């Protein structure tokens, strides 16, 4: 069930009605939410829902065990239990997502030394959202171990935290403390939440249906047949891909945040205009923020502390490992690993120049616009990101290499121009860029409306957004790109 589908709308409306009918009893509300979440997730595959439930119960028991161990001052036992938790989390990820890849890689590597090993690839269905919920599970036991939270007594609340249906498929990856806290109080129907949530859902739909799905037609047409396209078309499609990715994933996040808000939950933000950044460190602090902050807290910081004796080299090593994790988190393919390493390499000059630790502020002119050198740096950073996403988009390294080789070979061809796709996409992309510029540099400046219309600003915006989606949207679209992770 896709979030921007009619079936989801009916499902959500039904859940919302029942959920707020029992708004005075938080326990009942939590049970409604739990049933809804599991029903939603089981629509993908009932076996996945069972796996999710089993893992949830195991981690809940582990959390309890760590709490008991701390009560008895048995730190060793707590340490063993948290390590078991992390091992189960990583083990589940490894088994479902990376086992075949790992074995294939070993066999290929052994082949280099004339060692002939054999392995029959296992036919495994990767549970949807696995990378998201395993991270939530691990952060729960780690946070208990580090004393940030107490073990959750209520199994329903904990299960809700893991399976919360707006975020189970593609995040944002919420931390246990702020989320579980919200489950301890009854969520009373709030018209402001409904209005703001609805607006974010619509904005997410606009990003997904009018920009991401539109650009996908062009980008896929070129990338899936790159051997027949000119250099200029391949470069143009590659330059559009970061925008498509942003609209796709940010669109999903906006919808998830909006749905959660209507249900009375504030979940983590995931994007903060990532292309208005001048270096890769800035970019990652604004792109898929819930993942990067998770990895910063649970991977980079501990690594950095462990490697602190190596000085700058230790930090660089921690960054490279962290970025390799980010890359591999996206999938079992060497392209993802290289994607992470490629980004990691861009951190090295920042580390050496000391910019990594500085908070960069973009200079603006008297009108509030960023100055030309900063615009040039932003454009440069966009190119850096584009090259990385070419790796990300390629099915494997051979394809990536073939595309790179195609670029210098096919300069004599013309630009493939799919007029309806590009014009529709351009109109909507300009709207997105306008909104992002407005929020980034002119957050207090609103479009002027005559006073009689000013009081209906929200209504006007919503009505126009719906009409825009109907006019420019694609209604028979693909899944979200991030569902595969």
């Amino acid at each position, binding site marked *: 069930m896709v979030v921007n589908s009619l079936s989801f709308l009916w499902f959500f409306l039904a859940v919302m009605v029942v959920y707020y009918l029992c708004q005075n009893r938080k326990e009942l509300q939590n049970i409604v939410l739990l049933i809804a979440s599991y029903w939603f997730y089981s629509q993908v595959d009932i076996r996945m829902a069972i796996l999710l439930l089993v893992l949830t119960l195991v981690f809940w028991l582990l959390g309890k065990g760590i709490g008991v161990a701390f009560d008895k001052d048995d730190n060793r036992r707590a340490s063993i239990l948290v390590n078991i938790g992390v091992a189960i989390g990583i083990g589940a990820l490894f088994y479902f997502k990376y086992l075949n890849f790992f074995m294939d890689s070993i066999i290929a590597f052994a082949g280099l030394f004339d060692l002939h090993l054999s392995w029959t690839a296992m036919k495994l269905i990767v549970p949807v959202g696995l990378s998201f919920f395993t991270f939530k599970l691990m952060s729960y036991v780690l946070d208990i171990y580090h004393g940030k939270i107490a073990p959750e007594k209520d199994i329903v609340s904990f299960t809700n935290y893991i399976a919360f249906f707006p975020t189970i498929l593609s995040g944002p990856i919420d931390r246990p403390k702020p989320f579980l806290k919200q489950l301890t109080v009854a969520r009373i129907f709030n*018209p402001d939440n409904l209005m703001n949530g609805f607006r974010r859902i619509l904005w997410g739909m606009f990003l997904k249906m009018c920009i991401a799905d539109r650009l996908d037609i062009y980008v896929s047409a070129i990338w899936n047949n790159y051997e027949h396209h000119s250099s200029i078309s391949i470069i143009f499609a590659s330059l559009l891909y970061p925008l498509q990715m942003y609209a796709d994933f940010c669109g999903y996040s906006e919808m998830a945040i909006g749905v959660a808000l209507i249900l009375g939950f504030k979940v983590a933000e995931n994007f903060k205009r990532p292309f208005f950044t001048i270096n890769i460190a800035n970019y990652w602090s604004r792109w898929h923020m819930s993942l990067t902050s998770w990895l910063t807290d649970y991977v980079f910081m501990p690594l950095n502390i462990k490697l602190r004796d190596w000085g700058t080299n230790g930090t660089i090593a921690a960054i490279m490992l962290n970025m390799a994790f980010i890359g591999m988190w996206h999938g079992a393919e060497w392209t993802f690993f290289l994607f992470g390493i490629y980004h990691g390499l861009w951190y090295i000059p920042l580390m050496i120049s000391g910019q990594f630790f500085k908070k960069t502020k973009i200079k603006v002119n008297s009108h509030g616009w960023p100055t030309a050198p900063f615009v040039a740096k932003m454009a440069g950073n966009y190119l850096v990101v584009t090259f990385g996403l070419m790796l990300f988009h390629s099915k494997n390294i051979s394809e990536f290499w073939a595309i790179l080789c195609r670029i210098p070979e096919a300069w004599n061809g013309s630009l493939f121009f799919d007029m309806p796709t590009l014009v529709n996409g351009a109109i909507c992309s300009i709207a997105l860029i306008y909104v992002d510029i407005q929020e980034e540099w002119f957050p207090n400046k609103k479009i002027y409306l005559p006073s009689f219309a000013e009081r209906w600003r929200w209504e006007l915006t919503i009505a126009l957004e719906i*009409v825009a989606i109907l006019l420019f949207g694609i209604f028979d679209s693909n899944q979200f790109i991030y569902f595969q992770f």
Partner: protein
Amino acid sequence: MKKLLIHITIVTGLFFVFDRLLGCGLGLLYSQSNATDEYKISYSNESTCDSLLFFGSSRCLHHYVPAIFEEELGVSCYNTADWGIKNIYYHYGLLGNILTRYIPKTIIFEIHPCDWLQTPYSGAERANSLAPYCGMSNQCDEMLQISGNYWKYQLSMVYRYTGSLPNLLAGKYGTMDRSLKGWKPMDGVMDTTNVKAEEYPFAEDTVKIALLERFIKECQQYHIRLIMVESPMYICSKQDVFRFPRILAQKHGIPFLDHYRDSDFMGHRDLFFDFGHLNRKGAELYSKKLSKELRNTLPAI
């Protein structure tokens, strides 16, 4: 709560105002289209007045040269076919819309397996091209209902034109050679590398078959002479692909002119643009051949 209801009411009201205003504007642009597919569809639905009409999908669009038929048969012709694997859902809706304006004397229907088989790439959604004509005829509305979008087109006028704004603007300011009368010639010669016959391993579709029967019966009811035709292919399936339309034509007493394996065309690379579509030269030759055949065998046209 009261405040929220007011907000919702205002949003709904504003939406309908914006949607109707913009929808009317888009509808105007659509019917004023001078080029692009929108012109073709709007002309076929709103403006045709010719005695002989060609119905079908891309093979019909590229294969039937109205000027040649006009010269041979002495009647005005128009090729209403549209590309994009259009099937009986679209043809039946189009027929309904045309019948609200006038009754053509003859329809030449280039039938394709997607008109009676459960082809996964061509289902009821093909009728959505008729969305701007929602409400024009019962047949059209019924097809849009089967496609599952009728209520959406009723609810939103803008949705009828979703994604088509650039085409509408290009159509408004572009031009098209109207003397071709709906025919779209293809220039070039096919590349025969790896060419294989198209197979249709699909079950019969009872809904499509019922619609085909209704199409035939409605033509008979309005005394329209219906001729089913199959034009040549570069390479043909070994199966008897057109057994079904042959039986159907026999059942209803209508002619079925089968040129699928016509040796004047089959295997002649220079007459094809690709394995299923004749190029300009091939289409002109085929139109001459078919128009003569019609003149000799069906003199009443």
